């Protein structure tokens, strides 16, 4: 099953909607890396909110995406890992080392904005991240 990839300005957003086979994962990796080049993207977000299980191959694929996109000039961030999944992964030693993560899509975009600005590149997003003080809460407590 193909993972839908949306373009948002200079970023690509891949939303994983269900359990992916190894072939699907490889296809997603190929697709993302290709599109990073095609659109000269500066950031990639892989949203795994809908995912219950991430096995070792999936984790390796996510790491590969981060490395390969990095070689082509894009920062990658994985978002939406469920708390239970997070702990299970760590217990099994699948910690996505070296790959940036964020809580959700919103945080992921904020992170990419920060990263691209830090790299001294222009960003098309205006004022989504303020260094001091942080933005007012959007989510209800």
């Amino acid at each position, binding site marked *: 099953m193909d993972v839908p990839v949306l373009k948002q300005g200079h970023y690509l957003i891949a939303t994983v909607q269900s359990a992916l086979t190894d072939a699907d994962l490889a296809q997603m990796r190929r697709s993302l890396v290709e599109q990073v080049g095609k659109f000269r993207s500066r950031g990639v977000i892989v949203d795994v909110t809908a995912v219950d299980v991430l096995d070792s191959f999936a984790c390796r694929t996510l790491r590969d995406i981060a490395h390969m996109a990095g070689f082509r000039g894009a920062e990658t961030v994985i978002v939406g890992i469920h708390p239970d999944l997070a702990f299970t992964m760590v217990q099994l030693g699948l910690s996505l080392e070296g790959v940036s993560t964020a809580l*959700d899509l919103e*945080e992921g975009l904020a992170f990419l904005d920060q990263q691209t600005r830090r790299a001294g590149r222009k960003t098309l997003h205006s004022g989504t991240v303020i260094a001091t003080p942080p933005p007012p809460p959007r989510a209800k407590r």
Partner: protein
Amino acid sequence: MPTRGTQHAASTGVAGPESTMALLRELVAHLRQNRTQLREEWARRITEAELLTAMTKEEIFAEATSVYDNYVEALETGTFEALQAYARNLSERIIPRGVETHEVVGIVLLLRDVLARSLFAKYQADFTKLNRILDAYEPAANRIANTVAVGFVQERERIIREQQEAIRELSTPVLQVRERLLILPIIGVIDPQRARQLTEQLLRGIRTNRAKVVVIDITGVAAMDATVANHLVQTVEASRLLGATVIVTGLSPEIAQTLVTIGVDLGKMTTVGDLQGGIEEAERLLGYKVVPFAETPVEN
């Protein structure tokens, strides 16, 4: 006296069911008749053995009366549900008073002895009959002792479980002190079960509060074993997967030693000496700057 009785004298518990019931009825009648003095004898022996010191003489006598009556009734009916219920009820009352298991077992055994002696006294002239009476009495008496002791222990275990649950709930609050900043102050002993609960609460808290930084303060924790220390490291890593940075503060020398011993990669975990330092670091990470009023410009 039927001669059949003589042949049964040497065997245990092989009396026919009707004769057992008849014997039990006879013995129950005896116990009821002599209720007052047997109960007093028992209360006296309880005091002599220095049991139930947490209770007053009047209380002991009142409970002794209930236990005695329940005991005799269990002997009579041969059913133990009422006794079980009574045992649990009694336990619920005396456990908060500090009564221990050995005391409860002790007093029930004393009652068994007091009643047995009274049977010896009554039937001493007829050895055969005494044996048959004891054949009927002993299994029932043992079952009663067992029921009461088990009831007491089960009640204790239930209370302990309840208390543990209450302690656990008390001691793991996840507190938001600033936007995006959570504090998890841990006090006391962390066992693997509590560690698991802490992690679960923390990860959910990170998601609910959209926290970017968490300060876990373990000033109140004297020591942790390698398993729990590993668990802490895993918690830090799992938090990172949710986009939050964890700062651990207040490590005691012992815990610092444990972490070094198990080979924790300090690159994976940010630590600061005390809670104040941890909060200051967290604020720095979040982009807060704390400035005293005198320095801030007055806005018109």
